[in-house]
């Protein structure tokens, strides 16, 4: 009896393993920021007990970083006949199916670390903000090919809002 969400008979396409590095770097930046922010009470009050706060934050963030590779492996997508299937998340799992005709636009963005590694993120935008399908960590050529393919598919299945 499985408790986790899973869709049987779906061959997921995974994102590049190099994306782990991007995620680790951005999480590290976040960790530094959070640790500094949570140290403020200790620095201001000079009460040693307050140092527990940044310590707890640090432990949690180290755990988060330790799970980054598995979290990246949990990201997957598949182009079905009529819709795009997308999944992500380990602790908080999320599956989304978007019909191609619902596409409003496709965004390709590249952060500084992604650029060095030759990766880009693809964002499939519908009229609903909550759809939020973002496929990170695609090789630049793959992302552009996927974008062209999705645009072509959306064109053949054009729909209103």
């Amino acid at each position, binding site marked *: 009896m499985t408790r986790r*969400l899973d869709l049987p008979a779906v061959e997921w396409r995974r994102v590049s393993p190099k994306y782990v590095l991007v995620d680790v770097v951005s999480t590290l930046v976040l960790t530094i920021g959070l640790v500094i922010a949570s140290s403020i009470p200790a620095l201001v009050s000079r009460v040693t007990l307050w140092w527990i706060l940044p310590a707890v934050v640090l432990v949690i963030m180290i755990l988060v970083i330790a799970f980054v590779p598995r979290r990246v492996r949990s990201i997957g997508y598949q182009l079905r006949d009529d819709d795009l299937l997308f999944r992500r998340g380990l602790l908080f*799992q*999320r599956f*989304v*199916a978007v019909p191609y005709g619902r596409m409003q636009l496709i965004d390709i963005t590249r952060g500084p670390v992604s650029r060095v590694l030759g990766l880009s993120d693809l964002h499939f935008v519908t009229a609903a903000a909550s759809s939020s399908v973002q496929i990170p960590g695609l090789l630049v050529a793959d992302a552009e090919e996927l974008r062209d393919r999705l645009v072509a598919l959306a064109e053949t299945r054009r729909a209103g809002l």
Partner: protein
Amino acid sequence: MRDDPPEGDPIEDLLPPGAVLATRLADGEWHRLHPATPLLRGGIVVIALAGYFISQARQQLIDLFFGAPHAHDDGDPFLFLTRDGRLPLALLGIAAILIVIVVIFYLSWRVHTFRITDEVVEVRSGLIRRSLRKGRLDRIQGINIVRPFFARLFGAARLEIDVAGHDANVRLDYLSSSNADGLRRDILRLASGTKHAEQASTAPDSRGFVEQRVAEFIAPELDPSFAPPESVVRVHVGRLVGSIFLHDTTFTLLLLIALAAAASAALGTLEIVIYFLVPFALALGSFLFRRFTKSIRYSIASTPDGVRVGFGLLTLSNETLPPGRIHSVQVRQPILWRAPGWWEIKVNRASKSNAKGADAQRNTTILPVGNLDDVLRVLALLLPNTSPESTETLRRGIVGTGPEGGFTNSPRRAVVVRPFAFRRNGFAEIPGVVLLRAGGIWRHLTMVPEARAQSIGVSQGPIYRALRLARVHVHTVNGPIRAELGGLDRDVALRFFGTVSLEVVSAVSTDATHRWRAGGSAA
């Protein structure tokens, strides 16, 4: 089907001979607005200036008539002007300023033009900074005729054409009342995809100018001959007032006011009153006033071009929502409405439904208050192809619990996350619409037409995983409604995800509501 013409072509050539549009304004040529437009648009400013002037001059006017002695400060600018024969010069200056304003108003009116082709509606305006606004007719989400109080005195109305997107409406302000109504009919006809414009009966109005103006002013809706004026719901003033006072917002604000008053009495200071009581009282006042004026004289009726909703006391508003423009519907019951059995209906729309403040209610509340029968009648207008069986399912969805009516419910173990609602929590389907029923205390039923759903989701967090539960989402455009249902069995949720995502795909591909009458007339 013939090719669409390039935009800008006069439509006259394209219509079959004998076809007549209700007004001459939708012929693809540029037209000007109502001549009183600058006055009405600048109305507030003019009135404010006049008010300022009168308040400044009041003392002088009193002195003039009653011959009281001059006993004022030298700093008074009005007094300064009236002394030593500076008055003629001042009047000359004022006249010059007025002339300049009138010329500017006239020029801005001259360049403010609009045109309606069978593809787009365009408005261009601006004397120095030119602007051009374009809306595609097949993306129209609703057409609203608003008649503010001052505009009504001039027999003018504002036509707002809502196009999908945030703040993407095209406004034609102002038009004469009869033109506004006729133009709405024409735009809807062009947008509907009807190629044969029906013969419009435009009998000239034989009444005199004043009688006509009076009749327009009194008429609750423009041109009652067009739509069946029979509203399917009648909201009595008593029920409206009662519903407003029993509303959760009123209740919360009254509670806050009572708390603030009690606190200030206990502490014996006035500061709390000033910092808390006054803002709460103002919020309550504006909420009550807004809710009342936006709900009074409410009517909802079905027309060939969609649902028509009208309301208003001083400012009249009357909106037509073409078919397929409603992205989700929610029937809900504030807790104090349970005893009288009242419900309200909200909708998500692709245009403006995320507007804040005074406009928010107008755009999202379709039925301010009604009993169960009213609600079912309104739902029959809002949802596609409802039948007696589906009405029964809807009734179960609004008031029912348990599996009757085809509802799939939460398992018993969901009592941990839904202690009061686990028996009610569930989903069902009627043809083309997904129903999500939830809320044990704040009861609500969310309905999403499958042809409007943007995507389908299923999600699970750690607590849900431990309980083998999951949450399903039907993503719709932004608005007050979030269509999601938690506390479902994991397998049931995955099955829902599989079947509904397939149904959405097929509903999307067969949907043709963006040209809602094209199918019938093309045959």
